[in-house]
């Protein structure tokens, strides 16, 4: 959603952080880096970390 800056709510321009959509490519990179199959519980923790970083980046922007 894009709302003009003149409206005073430019921060709504930020990409929404969506579970299951945001950060999947980074998760895939992580798996490739590991080279072996990983436990899904461990992967879930990594995904939360990835989402947190994305969210912090969005907030800073």
């Amino acid at each position, binding site marked *: *959603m894009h709302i003009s800056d003149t409206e005073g709510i430019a921060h709504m321009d930020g990409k929404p952080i969506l579970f299951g959509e945001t950060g999947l490519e980074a998760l895939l990179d992580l798996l490739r880096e590991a080279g072996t199959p990983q436990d899904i519980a461990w992967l879930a923790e990594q995904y939360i970390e990835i989402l947190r970083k994305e969210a912090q980046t969005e907030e800073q922007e």
Partner: protein
Amino acid sequence: MTDQITFKGTPAERALAEQIHEVLRLQGMFYPVDAPVRQLLGNLVGYFAQRRGESPEKTRSDVAAAINANPEIFTQEVQDEDVMIITGRRGAYVQPKVDRSHSLVTRFYEPVNPLPVDDISVVITTTRPVLPKIDPVFVSDYWLNGGVSSEGEGDFDTIIPADDLPYVPNADGDSPLIGQTPRRRSNQMRINLPQGISIDLAQSTDHIMALSGDAIVSALRTTLEKDPYERFAVFANMVAAKQDVRSFGKNEIRSITDYIENEVGAPVEDKDILVHVMRVSARSVDFEQQLFALNYRLHKDLEFVGVSGVSLWATRKLLDKMSANRRFKASDMGALFSYLEEGLDDSVAVDSVEQIQSRGSVSHTLSFFEWDYGVLPFNRALAAILPAPIVSRQNTAVIRVEVPQIPGFHFDISVRFPMSGRGGWLQGFDSFFQDQEILAPGATITLKRTNMANVIHLSYNEAEQRIESLLYVDDSKKKSKFAFREYSFACDVEEELLTTQAAIGRIRRIKFLELAERRNMGSLVERIFEAFGEEVGTRQAPAYQLGFEQLYLVASAYRSVSRDFLRDTLTTHPNCQLVNHTAGLWSCRIDPNTEARRDDAQFDDEDE
């Protein structure tokens, strides 16, 4: 104009009445001609007393006399402490009447030519018209809130009062915030799981995982399995990048199928397949990766029947062969265990699931049905020590049962997990329950978890060899029937559950029901009452009484049943009622024309 009005009374009264009316007429000069003109007597007295220079008392007496002398002209209404005088501009006030006798409403209620009552149905219907139902249109809170989730007040976006915003001067040195309206701040630190759970990313990962770990893992699994780009390979609890997973050709899959079905003839572990069919060395560096790739690939074509830590594979054909049972179909058996999924599983009434899990063992008393068919219910007590399904759509797991009391004796059973409303059960015990001549109905067996996920131990209380005439199903003829024969067993039994001829001989009075016919518990209970109960009714209104435990014994010979299930059936059956709570005595009225009664009578004739 008052010329046409004639006032009555003495000359003085007539003169005063005319003056009063003139005053009131002037007051209502701009009123509609037929509107009432009202004035308080006290005000008139005050006016005329001043005008005539007389005392109020004298004036009041004269005014009252003039008004009383002309009741047609002046109407009086008593109000609190005064009197309201009402008149009209043309004389007496007459309330206008509207003729509504010919209005549509009046004509409907009072028709000129009313229909006779006999024909009233012609004009009046007592049937309420069906109002069209308008399906509600659900609009997500997300859109109602302008694309912002509303779950949990203040959980997501917050309205920030302008006063609370930090002071940031703009280029001109003026505060850009003064005078501005409050604005929305998007809280990017919160995400929503598909299950509707909101997660605050500002908290630590450990905290998040401790709080919602299962939901996150479940949601992530679904996401990865349904990734539209198919970038992830998921099997059980392991995930890999799909491009790193080796593929298997059709010929390789065919070789594996052939190996399982024709060479081994039983479910095979993934390691064996990799070593013996794919010729991969177990010492290979990438052995674990190849195992994952194999399991991931086989899940598409073969049946996973393993448990956590032991990946067993079978083919559909092999499973059909293994579970091939001339005596029942899986769908019929599943229906007989469906009560377990309807909240009528009483297996953890004494020991909780936690207690069973910590102890690692469950004791279970065999009913005739379980002993005869070699099945056990997959109830909550047994589920507490048995492995759970580990891949999606897994409906079967094959596990090994070892009997330490018989050295070297073991057999495989299938755990049929509950699925879509039907109950779960364990099958494959027939080779032990009957063939070994050790156990009998009423025997208590103990199943114990071992340190191998796919192996359980079975034990029983040994006793002196004993021979009894026990119930069995005679399949020797075209139509099966219950019969009794000498049977040897060597274990402790609960005597009240031992299906001896003395205890349950009357079962032969009931028509032998095929498995599919035993689903209707209410009908089965009626048949048991008729065959075993004490007659307490009349020929026209037959009724029977029977104890709960006797009902349970017979019902458990026909099908899987818990005491809660039987009690629920009796309680909800319209013809059954508890007669004596202490003795557990129930009664049942039987409709003399029921199908069951006719069937059983017919069976008796045939049997004789």
